């Protein structure tokens, strides 16, 4: 056979040169997202004449409602970054609510936090024993822990709270934290908000919502989010922990004690979920522990985690979205909620432009159809039926996941049972 080899010019140069790890840093993406959301909301608020979308009160509500979800999601982050799926967050959260009431009733709110964390951690320990030591399927163990958590707290309340509160399903009232406001700033923002100036007042309302009536718990949650980021991504401990979620065999071969890190992560996860429970109990409107008060928030936390692509900033966004959607529907009902539909139309319009620029004709057409459908809803209805608004956060989650799921990347060994040797 002849001995010619290919002509250099013919070499198909289809492989792109290895790209740099990330073009835009994560924090910039987050900042852009937040800015985009603010612009979208204030535009919607202006066009629909519904100031509640960005009012201080709405934001405060969103923060309060997001808090337990955020903490649960953070708990999920720790476990799943170490490779353990934690669907038992709900159960750990329930244990946290009980612990918070028990500790808080006796020794005050700080003790409530500690005791909630301890009770949550107990649930985490159980999950760790089952999944790490015994290699039980993570979902199975999580389901069981949800059962055990609910049963245990009911049982303990009957024994311990009943004599105090006369009600087996409720604790006596638990003392709460005082709240704090950045007084001068808050007032100034309040004046700005009251002026009803386009954009400016919206931003002022949102900011004011974030600096007014802040509970130490909120601050703690912020610290925990930032702290989780720093610990998981900036320390050797975090590197080792994440390596257990990415490739435990490799980690073990490099001398990382995978079992130990998984244990620490899952127990920490439970503690965070427990604090999420405490956030419910220590909520100003809540007398104390109340059976069933978590009401699926642990699952929602899990959704926020996935929504946030297993990153602290992302899950913060996910919880905020949940808190916001829920807060809006609770505070202002269907009419205001309809404004959000309008906002969705605006968002879709932006997406269509983007898709046209990127020459994705089919996707653009799909978005146009969706936008038209939503606009038709907006146009023809005065108020979204309450049956729908109540579960709007669920719907929003579904829609967002449907749109974004393919971009999500979970830790490579998440949910995989790891056995040493």
């Amino acid at each position, binding site marked *: 056979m002849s*001995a010619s*080899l290919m002509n250099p010019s013919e070499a198909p140069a289809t492989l792109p040169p290895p790209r740099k*790890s990330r073009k835009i840093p994560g924090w910039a993406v987050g900042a852009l997202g937040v800015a985009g959301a603010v612009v979208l909301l204030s535009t919607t608020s202006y066009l629909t004449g519904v100031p509640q979308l960005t009012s201080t009160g709405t934001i405060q509500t969103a923060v309060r409602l997001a808090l337990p979800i955020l903490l649960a999601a953070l708990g999920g982050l720790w476990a799943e970054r170490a490779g353990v799926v934690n669907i038992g967050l709900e159960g750990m959260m329930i244990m946290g609510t009980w612990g918070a009431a028990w500790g808080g009733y006796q020794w005050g709110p700080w003790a409530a936090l500690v005791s909630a964390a301890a009770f949550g951690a107990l649930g985490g320990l159980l999950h760790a024993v089952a999944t790490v030591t015994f290699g039980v399927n993570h979902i199975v163990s999580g389901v069981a822990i949800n059962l055990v958590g609910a049963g245990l707290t009911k049982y303990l309340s009957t024994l311990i709270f009943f004599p105090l509160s006369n009600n087996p399903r409720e604790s006596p009232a638990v003392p709460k934290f005082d709240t704090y406001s950045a007084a001068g700033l808050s007032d100034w923002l309040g004046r700005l908000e009251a002026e009803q100036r386009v954009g400016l007042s919206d931003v002022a309302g949102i900011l004011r919502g974030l600096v007014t009536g802040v509970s130490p718990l909120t601050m703690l949650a912020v610290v925990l989010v930032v702290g989780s980021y720093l610990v998981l991504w900036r320390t050797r401990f975090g590197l080792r922990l994440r390596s257990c979620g990415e490739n435990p065999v490799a980690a073990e071969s*490099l001398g990382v004690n995978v079992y130990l890190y998984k244990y620490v992560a899952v127990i920490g996860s439970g503690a965070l979920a427990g604090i999420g429970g405490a956030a419910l109990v220590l909520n100003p409107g809540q007398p104390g522990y109340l059976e069933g008060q978590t009401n699926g928030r642990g699952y929602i936390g899990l959704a926020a985690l996935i929504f946030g692509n297993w990153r602290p900033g992302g899950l913060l966004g996910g919880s905020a979205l949940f808190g916001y959607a829920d807060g809006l529907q609770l505070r202002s009902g269907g009419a205001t909620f309809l404004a959000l539909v309008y906002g969705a139309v605006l968002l879709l319009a932006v997406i269509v432009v983007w898709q046209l620029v990127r020459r994705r004709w089919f996707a653009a057409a799909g978005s146009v159809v969706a936008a038209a459908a939503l606009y038709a809803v907006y146009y023809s209805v005065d108020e979204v039926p309450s049956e729908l608004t109540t579960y709007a956060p669920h719907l929003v989650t579904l829609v967002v996941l449907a749109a974004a799921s393919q971009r999500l990347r979970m830790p490579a060994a998440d949910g995989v049972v790891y056995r040493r040797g």
Partner: protein
Amino acid sequence: MSTTTPAVVLSGITKRFPGVVANSDVHLSVQVGEVHALCGENGAGKSTLMKILYGMQQPDEGAIEVGGRQVRFRTPADAIKAGIGMVHQHFMLADNLTVQENVVLGAESLHGIGGKARRRIQELAKSTGLTVDPDVLVERLGVADRQRVEILKVLYRGARVIILDEPTAVLVPQEVDELFATLRAMREQGFTFLFISHKLDEVRSIADSVTVIRRGTTVGTADPKAVSSRELAEMMVGSELPSPETRESTVTDRVVLRVEDLGLVAEEGTRPVLDHIDLVVRAGEVVGIAGVEGNGQTELVETIMGMRRAHHGRVLLGDRDLTRAGTLARREAGIGYVPEDRHRQGLLLTQPLWANRILGYQTRKPTARGAWLDLPGAKEDTERIVAEFDVRTPGIDVAAAALSGGNQQKLVVGRELSGDPALLIASHPTRGVDVGAQALIWDEIKKARARGLAVLLISADLDELIGLSDTIKVMLRGRLVADADPATVTPEDLGSAMTGAGAGGVGPGGATAADAPAAVEVEGD
């Protein structure tokens, strides 16, 4: 040499697994500053021995000496402390972490995880020639780069004794040469290597001494310069080395598989993974595809099998157009498929052998009747395969996981040759299979070919490819770029074509341009 203290001495190592003695009374002595090769069949116990030395497994008996001092390693961390590092047979990297993170993992106490660590990595890279960008995610690296990261990992921990378990299995010859250059340079700097490979030529070219392991125990140590590959092989197996070669041609002119202008686009981007592939396989012909892993061979096979949807182009079996058919329909039309990863794609590991016989044949006789399974039929036919293909198993009711890799592979090949397929697509049919099973599989493929079977063979083992194929095509970046004649081509020629080395330094790590190798012909002008 003999007066200095050896770097590592293993004496009387015995390791038992449930049902298997992986190592029994192994003795091994490695001198400082040498490349010491370890050879043996599949399952001879090489990896196990190295894992013991690296502290990943505990020996049941025996002693380890490092630098003249008796040691006991309970974890890899202990071994690392003693200056031992290991590059595993299968890469041990976390894809979603950066190179730097992978390197410093577990050794953070040396230089932290920040700038200092990064400077140290760059320093090491410079001194050894193992250059990689510390900030890139490992998932973006090719195999050769991953290998560099693995070695960097070991060096970063200050290892002086480095275990390399089959480091060349996934590399093309040019990359092997590069690796060897690095090893030689490092040997000059006083590093000691324990080197495992099935490729005896390589062993002879790099090693200073070689120890052969057979059935878990050391057979002896030899000077690689003084023995031939054949002699080494006979030490390993105690018999003649089988050869894949098939000389007499059985090629007919009846086209069985015709692939026309096949294209596939990667899911996210627009980069074509398969680019205008045209291919013909005739009855009685074995067409081999050579290529560095990741250049589209897997995708080609999976597209022909209907597991991926082609973007454009056609796939015809005989004169039947299968472009729109699903995998099952293609199988029913007469395609047998030996997948590249038997554990992931070939077998249901926890199911009994007879259930594995049904897989892929769930609509056909003798394993099914209509919508119903024919369990007696399936069992009977499984017995047949076990007998014909010499599958070593206590019965057909044991789970597939209980068989050794070679026996699992024989079962898969036996299944895929059942029911008279017109075409067999075999991806790495003998990967990780020991010599005996390898010979049997080659034999069966040859027999079927003689009966008129068309075979599309993908293999990383260039000797196998050259030996079995009637035609070889070289695949590079999703395209078939060259043809080669197995009668004349050498593995080195193929290797150049596979890396595109002839095209001027586009190979990973900037392989230098080689002269146009003989017997490799550019496809399409």
